[in-house]
């Protein structure tokens, strides 16, 4: 109901979707920054995981009954989507890791800045 943020009743008010979304946003941005700043391929991979988790947080938040305040409600779609994201993230990690290892085998390095043969 109240979109303003009161420090006084911080612990007496239930968290809403916005709170979860904020956490998700932090995770997302951290992940994106990881991808942008890490030179280690596995660091980039970790950034991706964080980004996916940030996104997942939104799915879960919108699919949760406890956070409902009359807004959008995904119902069962929320957790199911989150589940698919988790599973696909696992698959993605496996493939990315395989790529990273291959890259390491071929270049003796996992610095993504060295993987720039495709530059224009």
């Amino acid at each position, binding site marked *: 109901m109240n979109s303003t943020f009161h420090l006084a009743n911080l612990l007496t008010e239930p968290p809403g979707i916005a709170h979860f979304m904020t956490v998700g946003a932090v995770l997302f941005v951290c992940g*994106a920054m990881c*991808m*942008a*700043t*890490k*030179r280690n391929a596995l660091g*980039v991979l970790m*950034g991706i995981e964080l980004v996916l988790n940030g996104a997942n947080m939104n799915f879960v938040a919108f699919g949760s009954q406890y956070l409902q305040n009359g807004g959008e409600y995904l119902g069962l779609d929320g957790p199911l989507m989150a589940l698919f994201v988790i599973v696909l993230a696992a698959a993605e990690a496996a493939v990315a890791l395989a790529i990273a290892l291959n890259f390491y085998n071929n270049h003796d390095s996992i610095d*993504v*800045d060295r*993987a*720039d*043969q*495709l*530059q*224009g």
Partner: protein
Amino acid sequence: MDASALPTLLAIAWLTPLASFTVIVLLGKSLGPHGKYAGYISVGAILVSTVMSLVALFGAWLPNHPLADASHHGASYEAGAHGSSSPNAHSGDSHADGRAADAHAADAHAADEAHESEKPAYYGDWYALGQWGKLKLTIGYYIDALTVTMFSMVSLIAACVHVYALGYMHDELHDPYVDHEVHVHDGGHLHRPGRFHRFFQYLSLFSFSMLGLVIAGNVAMVFVFWELVGICSYFLIGFYIERQSASNAANKAFITNRVGDFGMLIGMMALWASLGTFAFGDLTTPDGQTELGIFSRLRTAENDHRLVPPPEMVAEGERTFASTETTGDGGSNAGHWLLFIAGVGIFCGCVGKSAQFPLHVWLPDAMEGPTPVSALVHSATMVAAGVYLVGRFYPAFSPEALLVIAVVGCITLTIAATIAITAVDIKRVLAYSTVSQLGYMMLSLGLGGWAAGLFHLVTHAFFKSLLFLCSGSVIHAVHSNDMREMGGLRRKMPITAYTMLVGCLAIIGAGIPLTAFGLSGYYSKDAIVEQAWSFAETNKGAYWLLLAMPVVGAAMTAFYMFRLWYMTFAGKPRNHHRYDHAHESPAVMTRPLLLLAFFAIAVGWTVPLTNLSVTNLLHQAEPAGIAATSHGVLLPSLTVPAEALSHAPEIKFKAGLAAFGAAMTGLLAATVIYLWNTLNPAEIRQTFQPVYRLLWNKWYFDELYSAALIRPTMALGRRIAAFDRAVIDELIHGLAWLSRGVSKVFGVLFDQTVVDGTVNTFADWTWDFGLLLRRLQTGSVRQYVLFIVAGTLVLFVAVSTVQWLAYS
């Protein structure tokens, strides 16, 4: 058994031959040695059909629809005859007549049938193929007494023919089969693999097609099976495809039929365009509405089932015949014209299929097929289809259309009978006899004798199949078709000879005049002559020819039939080589002959102690409203008398005597000339040389068609081809040359400067832009991520700005 079982029973009877066909097509020669078991499968299938049809008739139809007593019919004749005594009365009276007859008939029928119009019939759809706008195509059924009768008749005869063919086609089991009539280049005979299985495969398909035609519930389905019957006959007539004559005959049959089908399509379109339905019966749609069928539309209950063009037909007709004059009472005749066209159109199809003048030429040539096929084609299937369709479509024929039918039938029966007199090929005699008998049927239907015509169809089917199978037996024995090489065969093959004698007696209508005892043809032919008599009495004038011709035809029938029998079986053998070679056919061939002979004798009888007879059965199916006398609208002087009127004793007496007298005359003449040899046929031939030449050459119909149609068409085609080569090809070449020159000039002037320049400029721009973009393509994943983030931000900001600008 409940009457609701009828569609199922008949569907089984209908589809079993299809199953047999499918099995044989798929397995073919692998069925036993040389495909021998294909024959058993096919025979089994048609036997199942027969049993199912008979179960449908005796188990499901008759218990639910008891037949009227013949004596009641007699009573109704009285009433009908009464009405006919004032034929010139106002047309409104004739309804009263019809209804009087109806009332009597109603007593005779089951008590719950309050109305004569409510003839028992079952109709519905099994499966809807689809609906395109108004056009709805379904697989449906329309089952009434006629359907059941036809099913029994067709399947019974087909079963006999199948069994017979097992023996007749035995040669085809040899591998290789030697066709003695085909000569190959080195002077020998053609050797080819046996086609036993293929023959039975076609027979099964043929039976399936004919049964489908009979059970069909709408015109579209009828047309489909109509064409299937046609293609089956094509296959079977051309069974000995290596023989040039067989191939030609098949083509001829097929193409001639197409001419008739063209007319039929026109008739179907005329009906559909104005009525918007193909169905015979009224159908109830899933949402509970009743869609009236063709018959209900044309003969509505409000109009006492008189044929009145429905309003939409009048409107359609007025659009089609914009300049039609209106009748005196303000109404338009347009609807009647349309009805006439539809009727004649449908009849055109029947003309082709039932080999009526002028499309009769294919049927005699169809003798090139194996004899069992001829038997089937000539009795139960192909040619019966046309007559059946006229009978089925009867409610839609206006009196004028009926007159056309009658005239065509009359011409056909006369011409065919005269040709049959001179033919020497045993099968050809029978073929022209068929054409002639079909003419009788058409004549009867055209004159209002609905039941008589269809009754003749049934009786004729039995004795004509008998006759053909007998002739097949003879051919099988002597290996020749030419009667001049036969003679005296009755001593060698008595069963064949005497069953054929039965057939001959049946076809000439042998019986004790003025009593109810005779062979089957006796009843049906007399009924036709009675109807003709009734018609001629009602409509004076030139219509008497429609009476005279059938009577004369009866005499000719008797003459040529007995000429055939005497030349074949009586007297002394003319060719001893063939005579010595002759032998009686095996049991598998003669048993069907005996069965058919029994039917040829007895099918016209009423089963003792019951009312069961084919006539009574057919009366049950008589379409609503046609029992009454009807009057022409376009041709006001035309009156089609009610069929009941023809049973009046005075007509019966005269017609019976006339028919009997004619038959006896013909029989006597044949006996005198061919048995006693009192008169020498050669001398007679000499005397009537021009007439004989005319008849021998089949009235020059083939030559006429050749000269009038085929040769002009060919000549025209050659001219047009020459024109094509000389003018059109040259024109095109010139144009091509011109285009090439012009394009060369344009290529230099325009293409290479303007078009190429534009394209190259664009390419250069793209290249430069690509070089620009290339700097962004750093290959670094991390920078790409930054681009994505930046892009997201820009997108957000842009959208927000636009929103802010738009809503603030």
